[in-house]
């Protein structure tokens, strides 16, 4: 049901508002990073779908969990099978908006500070987040950057005691998306 809702939201974001300019990408990059005295763990997903409405500030992301690539095969296996249960919950999503979108002049190149607010869903848990980021306008391209932390416990991710010292309770998320203007 959540899948259908998100798809409809994505479509609505793209279709509605004839005058509103949309920016999209299918190659958004999300990296997560866990650091503990025992070890550092990071994973990258470079095929993230994202769409931004320049008028309303509406912003959606959708990332396939199995597209997160780890250096070590065992870590990836544990991530998919035990921690995020990718077969049961294949996607993570964000739907929200850039609350100060009016401060961004899409006709003028430059870097703008933005505040992003919305619902982040990982596994079966949805949490409201409010984070800082930047939008850099360069002609028809817009690069969006944001770095923030999430608590694994907030998203029902259970880490077994045996590896509790290897995985941080707070994970850093780096988001880097290069949006392109959609043809009207």
């Amino acid at each position: 049901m959540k899948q259908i809702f998100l798809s409809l939201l994505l479509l609505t974001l793209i279709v509605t508002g004839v005058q509103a300019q949309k920016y999209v990408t299918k190659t958004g990059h999300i990296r997560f990073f866990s650091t503990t005295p025992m070890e550092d763990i990071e994973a990258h997903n470079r095929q993230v779908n994202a769409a931004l409405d320049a008028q309303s500030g509406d912003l959606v992301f959708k990332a396939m969990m199995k597209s997160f690539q780890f250096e070590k095969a065992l870590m990836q296996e544990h991530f998919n099978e035990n921690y995020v249960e990718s077969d049961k919950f294949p996607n993570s999503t964000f739907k929200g908006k850039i609350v100060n979108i009016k401060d961004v002049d899409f006709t003028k190149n430059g870097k703008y500070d933005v505040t992003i607010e919305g619902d982040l869903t990982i596994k079966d848990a949805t949490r409201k987040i409010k984070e800082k980021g930047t939008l850099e306008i360069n002609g028809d391209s817009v690069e969006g950057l944001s770095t923030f932390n999430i608590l694994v416990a907030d998203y029902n991710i259970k880490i077994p005691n045996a590896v509790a010292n290897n995985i941080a309770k707070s994970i850093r998320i780096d988001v880097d998306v290069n949006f392109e203007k959609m043809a009207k």
Partner: protein
Amino acid sequence: MKKNWILILGSLAIIGVIAAILIYIFVYNKQQPDYSKANPDYTLNGEELFREFRNNPDAAAEKYNGKVLAIEGNLYSVESTDSLTIAVFAIEEGMFGDEGIRFAFIPEFASKIASTPPESLVTIKGYCTGFNDTDVIMEHCSLVE
């Protein structure tokens, strides 16, 4: 008698250390498999795969997600960024632009697919991570000769 015990305990300690080293190397520290050498679980046409995901995403996800697929189709385009080369089979035109199958290439196979002319009939092998409502996503891809 005492010597025997020392010998047994010493042997067990050595076996334990060797076992720990082997577990570290072959289990804990195991690198990602080389998907270019993997035997595909399924060999199929790109359009057929896309329609399966489009028409029944749950059944297709259960069948294909996490599997190695060899997919035949006409190359539509190749997108390159600093760290990524993605080949595209465009199956239909959607609200999000072209929709179909997107193949992220293993770096050593990237130049080969980048120099393949559009519309060429190719078979690409890789690891299927699922369908995101617009495209079937493939990782660790290589061109099948």
